[in-house]
């Protein structure tokens, strides 16, 4: 009896060990490569500088745009970084090793998505105020902006990872993933930008945040399973 508890215990330990080892590896990779780390930042900054230049430099006009632009930029940044989530593992053979591991796949997958989110979604959230200032977002909107991004971007990462997993073995991955994932992103975009708009106009934004939270909970529950299944399927040909 104690034997068995012990083995369950040790298994749980090795699972959390795997989770953290994967996180560690992903962070190391991002920090060494730097590009994952800085890319969303650069993309965000680009959008923030290009918009005033291309559309109109008037503060009044820009401030109307700001909630939507920040959210669209966050969405695009996530989407564009998604393709790389499993691709390099696929190309160098690590993914095969992953699939042949006796450990449950969804642990590794969850760790990878977490790491990915924290170098894209979280970074975007932290940088959002800067963008807000550059686009003249009223100060009242800032908390709403950051909260909505904080709740919305993990959903984006989780859903995007499903697309990445479905397309990982394909030569045409890059395009497909946008097509597959974009329709699924739209609710997040709508609730997110509505939350910011509500915050700007002083309306209550609790409802939107609750919805974003519900989406996140749903994604957290279902996405890891879908991702693991998709990975197995797309590697099995």
């Amino acid at each position, binding site marked *: 009896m104690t034997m068995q508890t012990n083995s369950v215990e040790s298994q749980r330990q090795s699972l959390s*060990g795997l989770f953290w080892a994967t996180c560690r590896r992903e962070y190391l990779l991002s920090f060494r490569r730097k590009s994952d780390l800085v890319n969303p930042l650069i993309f965000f900054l680009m959008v923030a500088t290009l918009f005033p230049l291309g559309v109109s430099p008037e503060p009044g006009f820009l401030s109307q745009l700001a909630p939507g632009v920040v959210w669209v930029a966050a969405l695009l940044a996530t989407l564009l970084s998604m393709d790389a989530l499993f691709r390099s593992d696929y190309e160098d053979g690590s993914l095969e*090793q992953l699939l042949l591991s006796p450990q449950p796949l969804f642990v590794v997958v969850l760790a990878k998505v977490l790491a990915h989110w924290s170098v894209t979604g979280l970074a975007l959230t932290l940088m959002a105020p800067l963008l807000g200032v550059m686009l003249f977002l009223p100060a009242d909107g800032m908390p709403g902006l950051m909260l909505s991004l904080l709740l919305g971007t993990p959903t984006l990462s989780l859903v995007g990872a499903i697309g990445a997993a479905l397309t990982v073995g394909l030569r045409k991955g890059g395009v497909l993933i946008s097509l597959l994932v974009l329709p699924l992103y739209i609710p997040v975009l709508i609730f997110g930008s509505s939350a910011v708009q509500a915050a700007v106009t002083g309306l209550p934004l609790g409802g939107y945040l609750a919805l974003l939270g519900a989406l996140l909970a749903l994604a957290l529950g279902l996405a890891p399973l879908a991702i693991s299944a998709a990975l197995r399927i797309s590697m099995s040909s």
Partner: protein
Amino acid sequence: MADQLLTVQNLFCERDDRILFSRLGFAIAPGEIVQIEGQNGSGKTTLLRILSGLSRNYEGDIFWRGEPVGEVREEFCRNLLYFGHQAGVKAVLSPQENLRWYAALSPAIDAEAIDHALEQVGLRGYEDVPCHSLSAGQNRRVSLARLYLSRAPLWILDEPFTAIDKKGVAAKENLLLKHAQQGGSVILTTHHELGIRGPVRKINLDQCAGTSV
């Protein structure tokens, strides 16, 4: 059948309307070294990927210790070490960091073993160098270090000796022999002339497909 590690019955695989093998059947007992032979494109890699469970693009039955491999998947994975064409080495990580993650994937290997394994594959002094500034052979060696770490009885190795120098190949061959003597089994492909001083069973895939020059 249960005293065989792996039993393959009536395996059939085709790619693009080319039949690679059909009615292939063999069994692998503990302690055996099996070399899959065949010319380029004869289906060695395909077969190894099927055996390891990576590819499901086949018809036929595969049994692990007498049970259908699909039903004892986790058990099977726990007993398998697969070494593929791609080394699975991240260029920006050091050999040590690479191996540490592999250790986490198949639990209960301590860090000391990693340093030891790296020394065994001749990468002492390179533990902290990012793998992109290692040579082709050194990169393969990083991945080969897993052989020294693994306690899995079944090894499936796809051209493990690519880019390895002669001394390295001899060391690896000794390792395979030792593994077999301890009751493990090895399935491998290689275009090298194997110099293992022990019995090596050969399975030839040349009958159907492949290049002929």
